[in-house]
């Protein structure tokens, strides 16, 4: 089932000469983990902001469960279906205590108090921050803050979570925490996840990888398939995972190797198998 549908979406920021989105067609299926990759200014954040009607298209339309995001009367409906996590964890935490912050969205929706309590506890457990529920957010690490922000979105019980570069301001440890949390949510809870990022390695676990450049989708497919297009990726100013890079260079040197072994182990196996077959002859 399609949960978000982009139909020929164009968008220009007021006062900007260039289109930030230049005709995007994209549909996101329920239960999938979609990574959107692109360098700065590729329009990937603009794309994310269209998913819950923070921005509405200047041309074309975006449908969330069939609801046009430009329909101002149904704005709240769209926003409760699509939860957003932003880049800077400090600027999206509203309250002084972790659990109060997680409760913010359900409170806004008028959920009964006992139900809010239940949702907050559950959401905090899912991101493994339950024991920090009484803490002040400013005393947490970046990764922990970002997990609280994710919990705050989960408590709203959205159908889709869109994360707009959630790891850009985090240290490696925090990045790992956040990415692990996102993967777990997707795998175990069947959440639909859209992850906007410019880190290749964060895309590896995704079901689907969309590459954006200059407001357009330039590649769309499984991460293995997309990363195999090494020339395309490099033309777009993006690097590929080191495993793909290695296989690509070996191929360029004349070895007959496949390019779609993304995981380190898989890559090692492919090379080992090749060595064996060559030596066997």
């Amino acid at each position: 089932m399609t949960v978000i549908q982009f139909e020929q979406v164009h968008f220009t920021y007021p006062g900007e000469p260039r289109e930030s989105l230049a005709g995007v067609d994209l549909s996101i299926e329920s239960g999938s983990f979609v990574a959107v990759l692109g360098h700065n200014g590729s329009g990937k954040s603009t794309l994310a902001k269209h998913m819950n009607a923070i921005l509405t298209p200047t041309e074309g339309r975006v449908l969330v469960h069939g609801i046009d995001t430009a329909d101002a009367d149904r704005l709240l409906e769209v926003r409760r279906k699509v939860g957003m996590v932003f880049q800077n964890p400090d600027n999206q935490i509203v309250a002084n205590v972790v659990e109060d912050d997680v409760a913010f969205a359900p409170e806004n929706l008028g959920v009964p108090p006992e139900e809010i309590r239940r949702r907050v506890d559950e959401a905090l457990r899912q991101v493994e921050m339950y024991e920090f529920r009484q803490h002040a957010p400013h005393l947490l690490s970046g990764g922990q803050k970002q997990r609280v922000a994710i919990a705050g979105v989960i408590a709203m019980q959205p159908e889709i979570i869109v994360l707009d570069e959630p790891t850009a301001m985090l240290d490696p440890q925090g990045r790992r925490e956040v990415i692990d949390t996102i993967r777990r949510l997707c795998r175990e809870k069947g959440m639909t996840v859209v992850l906007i990022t410019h880190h290749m390695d964060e895309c590896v676990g995704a079901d689907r990888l969309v590459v954006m450049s200059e407001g357009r989708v330039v590649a769309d497919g499984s991460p293995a398939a997309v990363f195999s297009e090494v020339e395309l990726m490099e033309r777009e100013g993006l690097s590929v995972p080191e495993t793909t890079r290695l296989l690509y260079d070996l191929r360029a040197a004349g070895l007959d190797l496949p390019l779609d072994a993304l995981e380190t182990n898989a890559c090692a196996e492919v090379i080992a198998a090749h060595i064996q077959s060559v030596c066997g002859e």
Partner: protein
Amino acid sequence: MLKDVTLGQYFPGDTVVHRLDPRTKIVLLVVYIVALFQASGWWSYALLLAATAAVMLLGHIRAKNIFKGLKPMLFIIVFTALLNMFYTPGRPVVEGWIITWEGIERSVQMILRIVLLIAGTFLLTYTTSPIALTDGLERLMSPLKRIGVPVHEMTLMMSMALRFIPTLIEETDKIMSAQRSRGADFETGNLIRRAKALLPILVPLFVSAFRRADELAVAMESRCYHGGEGRTRMKQMKLQSIDAFAFALGVLFLAAIIVMRRFHL
């Protein structure tokens, strides 16, 4: 050094004082302040001091934390004390001196009054989470909604201001370090020079505060914030027997102070 600011700080805990309804605590603070200004004799001050100490003990709040918060007020306290000491007529301590026994008494009481006033307010903010505090205020002031006062918006602004104080302090620290590492000097020179040195800190701080406000608004809207209408609260406020008890105690306390005033105790 900037991290020492204790204004609006909250020490989480699970004591009787923490568990009291925020509305009870706010009303009791008002009662306490009224009592403080009714106190006239040493016995009244002793009672006030004892009550403050009792609340500190019950709430596990260390005197150290109260004194830390008093530091910025030191100047005002000393100034008031000195004025009272020199300008109260009465019997001079030493023949020919301007300082009088009455003056010393007045100034000590003045110090006590200010210290207790601040300590009382700190006890409220130390034992009540800012959210509970603003919720309490919102509920106490909700009758004003009927005459068009935006109570929800005001209290939300307050709690968010409190939320961002530590974040902005951290940021100020960072900006100051950055400027210092490039040779900025904040400590020496006269007042004007130092004020001028602050400008390169304030400008980036304000720019960043505006950016934060913008992002925060988007994040709030993304989480379906649409004003106070139809909003519920996870933490419901219910007055319990302990609140009734605290109220009764507060009323008795105020009554005692007023009675003592009549007898100049």
